[in-house]
């Protein structure tokens, strides 16, 4: 069945209890619905030239009049981001890949640093200087626990791979039966 466009003012009772003062958005917003706006699609006269890759939400029809340009999508993280933008902001398949892309991007950042001959100073970048200055004992405890946990996991993984090797049966010579 086809949907029909109605003139709501022709509906019996339309607007008889309307109360403009009953507006929870006041004073945050000067209430104006699209029908009251003579130019609801108004855009700034000048539009920023799209001279770089801008990922656009599919919930809007165009690129906004201005946009940020500093970090266009690149590499594997860029591929993931482009795929994410095929879906709306309403979907997990938009947001979750973006979070994954952010993590991939961190690895790409380290590789990029190294490729440019720069070894990241993780201690400084993580601001450990101030932890050392203002929170030393807790910081040492935390680092010790992380180191112990990491060593434990490494030991466990290496021992389990050794035991797997030991338990692995000798390959049978299936051809011998023939």
């Amino acid at each position, binding site marked *: 069945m086809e949907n029909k466009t109605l003139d709501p003012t022709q509906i019996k009772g339309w607007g008889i209890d309307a109360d403009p003062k009953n507006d929870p958005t006041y004073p*945050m*917003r000067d209430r104006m619905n699209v029908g009251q706006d003579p130019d609801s699609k108004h855009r700034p006269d000048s539009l920023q030239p799209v001279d770089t890759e801008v990922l656009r939400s599919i919930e809007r029809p165009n690129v906004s009049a201005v946009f940020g340009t500093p970090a266009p999508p690149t590499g594997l993280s860029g591929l993931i981001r482009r795929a994410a933008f095929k879906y709306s902001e309403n979907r997990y398949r938009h947001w979750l890949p*973006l979070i994954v892309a952010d993590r991939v991007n961190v690895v790409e950042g380290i590789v990029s640093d190294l490729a440019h001959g720069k070894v990241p100073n993780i201690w400084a970048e993580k*601001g450990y200087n101030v932890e050392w200055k203002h929170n030393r004992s807790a910081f040492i405890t935390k680092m010790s626990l992380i180191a112990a946990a990491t060593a434990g996991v490494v030991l466990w993984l290496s021992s389990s791979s050794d035991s797997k090797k030991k338990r692995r049966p000798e390959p049978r010579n299936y051809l011998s039966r023939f």
Partner: protein
Amino acid sequence: MLAMEYRGPKRVRATQKPMPEIKHPQDAIVRVLRTCICGSDLHLYNGNVPDTRVGSTFGHEFVGEVVEVGSEVTKLKTGDRVIVPFNIACGECHFCRQGMFGNCHESNTEATAVGAIFGYSHTAGGFDGGQAEYTRVPYANVGPTIIPEGMDLDDAVLLTDVVPTGYQAAEMAGIQTGDTVVVFGAGPIGIMAARCAWLFGAGRVIIIDQEDYRLEFARNYSYCEAYNFREMNDPVVFIKKITDWMGADCVIDAVGAEAAGNAMQTITGRKLLLQAGSATALHWAINSVKKGGVVSIVGVYGPTDNLIPIGNVLNKGLTIRANQASVKRLLPRLIDHVQNGVLNPKGLITHRLPLEEVADGYRMFSAKLDNNIKTVLLPPTANQ
């Protein structure tokens, strides 16, 4: 130029980056004089905001001096010193013309649910922020406001976000004369919201946090009662108890996604990112406000979902009001309040660091070290 640069969760550095350029006729380039680290920057710092790209520069609280303007900029000239609202607004779209400058539709291509914010991920428009020596400021005819003669730059920089957001939190709470107002979170925004609650006629203001030094600060700065939720069995029962078992008239969530206090929320929201942050404060707000009350949200959450007791919102007949602050709308009134001595924004500042030490600044704020409330970063060019 020197700028802060994001390298991954909890990893930032100060590094040399190219100078920003005019990209649109209404752009201006601003030499940053003061810039701050905001509580909401911690969501980016912790890697919790989707589409936060390595190499981005954060910083949405900054003031500066105009050094270059685009061909269509008519309201600013080189040499003007300006307060730059944290949100980027065209001033012309359907939303800006309703005073919703935090919800502009012509500044963010990458998400429709959020307006553009300086230095706040590509989800918020992909603009570099003000934790740098220079920054590109779009729509320079609209957002930037000239710093009044004689106003301290430290006051001015807090008018970009902290004061308007705290004020709007109180405004959205719909406070009536004599109301009891509870504020969750004694960070800079919560402290300012508690201070501003009095301006709307609150009869009692209570702030809840887990850091004693922040509670002590709030007690002195905002003239409010302050309680540590770590010393309570259940903060909701505590609030009911001290409000004649009715609940508060208005509750403000000034915490957002980094909330502590509930292991399940912390693990699912902050560690596993299965929620858009930990919604502990919002959960408490809904449950501790009285029936028919108002919950005002200015704490920042991510774009996906959160676990909150929405059934209680229905059954208690609550009103929830939330938004990014409409800085441009509020600035004239707030500038008056600062100039008349009603508000003292710079009283929030506890630390000053050179931009070169930005990583230390983030760590200090994130780990709440050295009684940190608010850090101002000073770029090397700030004193030129």
